[in-house]
């Protein structure tokens, strides 16, 4: 067993884990944060994407022990009470989700993009989303949502 202490959505979480516990298992099963999903389990679909120290990672392909001491942000960490994060609000306004299974991964992935490029172009967004797969929407509305979400975040300063 190993002891990990990880800041998750601003809260220090210390737990005993087996070394082979994946970060996604730690979040979902140990902490009950089930907004992060396991889609392909083979590092391709992006449904498991969270931010670790501000950068998007596939939590299905990271061990919890590798995140020891790090700061993790999941989809649950974005809204402030009932107030949606601008990126979440944009996904809702632009109908960028249907079943919603891939959505947390897309939102977290988009947040990493926007911190690097405050005003990403469509080409930037399409390039960045190569690691996120959606079976429902056809991507069009997701791209529009990310463009709008980025603009809203830039306005908020």
């Amino acid at each position, binding site marked *: 067993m190993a002891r990990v202490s990880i800041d998750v959505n601003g809260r220090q979480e210390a737990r005993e884990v087996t*070394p*082979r516990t994946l970060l996604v298992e730690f979040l979902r099963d140990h902490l009950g944060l089930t907004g992060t999903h396991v889609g392909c389990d083979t*590092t*391709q679909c992006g449904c498991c*994407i969270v931010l670790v120290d501000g950068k998007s*990672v596939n939590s299905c392909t990271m061990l919890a022990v590798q995140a020891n001491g790090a700061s993790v942000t999941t989809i649950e960490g974005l809204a402030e009470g009932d107030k949606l994060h601008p990126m979440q609000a944009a996904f809702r306004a632009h109908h960028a989700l249907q079943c919603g299974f891939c959505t947390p991964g897309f939102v977290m992935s988009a947040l*990493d993009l926007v911190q690097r490029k405050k005003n990403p172009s469509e080409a930037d967004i399409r390039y*960045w989303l190569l*690691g996120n797969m959606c079976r429902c929407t056809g991507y069009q509305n997701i791209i529009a949502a990310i463009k709008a979400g980025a603009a809203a975040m830039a306005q908020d300063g």
Partner: protein
Amino acid sequence: MHDFNYHEPTTLAEAAAILRAARDGAFIAGGMSLIPALKQRRVRPSDLVDLRLIDGLNFIRRDAGALVIGAMTRHEEVADSALVRGAIPDLARLVGEMADPSVRNRATIGGSIAHGDPAADYAPALLALGATVVTTERTITADAFFTGAFSTALRKGEIIKAVSFPIADAAAYVKFANTASRYAVVGVFVARRAGAVRLAVTGAKAKVFRIGQMEAALERSFAPDAVNDIAIAPWGLTADIHGTAEYRAHLIGVMAQRAVAAAARQRRS
């Protein structure tokens, strides 16, 4: 995955000692190759030795005529680096087209080359640029480093510290990527430096390899036409669900021409 003991050493010496003492240990860098292998039970090490807490392995520098990249430098940093883009632009582009952003945030150059995937993208860059791998024990030339499928010249407990890339006059990489995995079905990296040409192919055999015949032709004339008549034999090439050996043989010719065309367009002032 199977269970294992996990170690977080803070120095290279400590890491090497732990690995050597383990029954069947493995180093872990970003984990983008190793963790999928663990999940599929393709490997079952007794011990995992994590390199993440060791200082001094994460850097990009320019030393005289070479670009030196620390072994734990993440792909995303290399792809975004102004230093890399200025020195060897197609190296930055190559790395920026590996996998996807979230994988690139974790994957490292050291981990990538140590893993030795026959379809990896860094390997042909090392081979074509004539790079050197600096380890805890010695320096290894790219020609000697890649020895087979998932196999390298690294000895047990030997750890990569950095890779040094001589800066080429012109260098380009073109790959025909598998649409899902983004690995190269075939990729060709060509580089020219002081008149000498090196051309390396990935995805087509158990390990990266050079094509001497194409290199010689390109030294006489550095243009896509120079390799037009060089037919690649399918014998010994990889055949799998992504392509036959004959298809790969054909792709090598096409990718080589495109890489040369791209490199020929580059001007060095």
